[in-house]
């Protein structure tokens, strides 16, 4: 029988443990008056906040007022009960990983990447794939045991898939930076549909990345893993190798990484 983990109740920390202090700021579309201040106060009270202090009230424009509010919340969460999938890689260094690929995969790992759809942002995918890499961490092109193809931006999903299939790619990397009105989700879903149609879903590793992406979202959208802001190429390289070995049945989940659908 599984032992029930102890509860771990937490709430915001302002100046003292469990004081529940939060700060918020918002704008109301009314002129800056005492009445506006009262409106801000009532709004916060309706949010269930206690000890609401509308500290700052400024005229942002003739009929817009900016508020800075501090208040207390009585809401709590049980931290112990929260389970969220995360890509956890026990990282190997550059040389170590290359040697490991040589030994355990026995050939170069082929990856294709692009920023797809109407999105023109290349810097994120470049950071992962290009030689130079990101924050002093080499990109996949630099790894002798990776063969990386970076198709750039505004690439149609179908093109990326077709090009990757032509080279029997092990992994496809999709970058999505623009998120307005959830275009990144729509386009990512379209990518997954196209991957299913092409018969590579569940076979080729599909990775999604971008500033508003996390592993949970990527999995929900049908990818194998998701990577957010600050991702280093070495993390991605390690993930791909282990996930690949896992797919080939050569490695067990949890051995070197926990991820995919944790």
């Amino acid at each position, binding site marked *: 029988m599984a032992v029930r983990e102890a509860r771990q109740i937490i709430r915001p920390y302002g100046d003292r443990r469990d004081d529940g202090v939060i700060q918020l700021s918002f*704008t109301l579309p009314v002129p800056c008056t005492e009445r506006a201040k009262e409106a801000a106060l009532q709004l916060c009270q309706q949010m269930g906040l206690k000890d609401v202090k509308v500290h700052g009230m*400024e005229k*942002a*424009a*003739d009929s*817009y007022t900016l508020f800075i509010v501090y208040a207390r919340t009585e809401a709590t969460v049980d931290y112990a009960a929260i389970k969220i999938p995360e890509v956890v890689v026990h990282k190997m260094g550059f040389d170590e990983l290359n040697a490991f690929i040589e030994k355990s995969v026995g050939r170069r790992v082929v990856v294709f990447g692009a920023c797809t759809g109407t999105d*023109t942002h*290349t*810097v994120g995918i470049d950071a992962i794939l290009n030689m130079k890499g990101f924050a002093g961490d080499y990109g996949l092109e630099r790894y002798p045991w990776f063969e990386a193809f970076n198709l750039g931006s505004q690439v149609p999903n179908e093109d990326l898939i077709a090009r990757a299939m032509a080279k029997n790619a092990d992994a496809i990397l999709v970058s999505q930076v623009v998120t*307005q009105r959830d275009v990144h989700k729509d386009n990512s879903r379209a990518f997954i549909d196209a991957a299913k149609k092409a018969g590579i879903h569940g076979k080729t590793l599909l990775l999604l990345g971008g500033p508003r992406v996390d592993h949970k979202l990527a999995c929900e959208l049908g990818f194998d893993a998701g990577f957010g802001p600050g991702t280093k190429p070495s993390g991605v390289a390690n993930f791909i190798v282990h996930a690949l070995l896992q797919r080939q049945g050569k490695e067990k989940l949890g051995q070197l990484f926990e991820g995919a659908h944790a």
Partner: protein
Amino acid sequence: MPGPFIQDEQIDSARAAAHEVTQPVIDFIHRHSSVSVERTVLRMFGMDGAGQLGIPLANLMVDKLHAAKVLHKGAAYWYGRALQLGARSPLDAVERLTALPADKLAPLSPEREGNLREAVRQEARAAMGELHSRVEARSALRAELGGMPPAPHKYVIVATGNIYDDVDQARAAAQAGADVIAVIRSTAQSLLDYVPHGATTEGYGGTYATQENFRIMREALDDESKKLKRYVQLTNYSSGLAMAEIAWAAAYERLDMLLNDAMYGILFRDINMKRTFLDQYVSRRICAYAGIIINTGEDNYITTADAYEAAHTVIASQFINESFAHRAGLKDWQLGLGHSFEIDPHRPDTLLLELSQAMLVRRCFPDAPCKYMPPTKHKETDIFFSHAYDVMADLVAIWTRQGIQLLGMMTEAMHTPLLADRYVALKAANYLYKAARGIDEEFVVREDGKIAHRAREVFGRATELLEECRKDGLVAAIGRGRFGDVKRTETGGKGLDGVFERGVDYFNPMLEILEEKA
């Protein structure tokens, strides 16, 4: 004046090198035209409507002429032919022309040809005269409201995707002290080979640059300017496959500035070089005529490439952009040459390095209202740090007396600015400008220090790059990825099929007027 750092002669020779770089391109421009240039001419004649399925009339007509392989005579010529056929309206002209089989487009007698051209020229003069008086009305309003405040002009962006919300936000920003409002365009408009029609209420990442949106926003700002007793400028984007047409619409609707770069489309939107060179020339001719200040896009180089390593590409490109601008008749006061505060803040000495770069730009282009962009690429989601980071750019802007400063937004790494983000940025810039104006006159930058040393190093590398462009040509330099780390070829990219050689009898009365005016 920030520093000597370098000799005047060195600057002169960089400028001369850039002028040589643009010469072959200009020769090419004078022998060619593009579908979008021709559509601009038709817009001048009032053909700004849209036909069935929302396709602009100018596109319908130019596409038809291009397909019939007769566009080398110039769209204005065919417009004249349609008039001769008895066209009573732009739509009628398009219908009459598109109804004709290709073989009915044969030349007329020399006499009738001559009359036709004279009649069309007259109409062009009238149209340009009307444009001129609209621009005059703008200048009059500006003068009536006491001219422009001292630089830097505080520039902020609105990007709601709905032009009517944009209006509310623009008014709010003006009330908080903004001098320039930029309306961001809808995602991927650059790649549309036409100008969309009408007001936008459902744009992605911005609203379309349409004549109607321009009109709505400029009218609102006129009204707000009168209330505030301070003229508020309006800007939009003249770039992409419809660069010249947008310039026309903007000039007509009295915009004050336009983002307009000679190479941006090539590098960042993969638009064919020949096409871009042609379109930028005509768009700039229109800006010159309409007193529009252009903003160039060198800041983009250092959001793609590393800002420390690629600093010299900004300077070299500014010289090239300046030369292209001069060749299109723009005056120095119209050159908002772009640069930005983008060096990775994890490095040491970045405030010194940014000051150095900003001073160097002012040293090279003392009479241009340089456009200073804030940190963007290294912005992260800690809005409190972001705000402090932006204030450093405000300090550099006032210290080096930039002409136009785009204010940084603390939420840059997350979303297009909220109303409050803009307010907070304006408040900080208002404070800094007040607190530090004149600081440049108090401190002299030592010639043997880090700032001067870096300026010399960057200028030296810029000169080398200009020299490479001069020797091997601009096309080759772009091919090697010298600007923004992006490589492009002469025949690659979008829109090349819209480029054609002018015939011996090419007729473009709009360009005649724009070129003689200079």
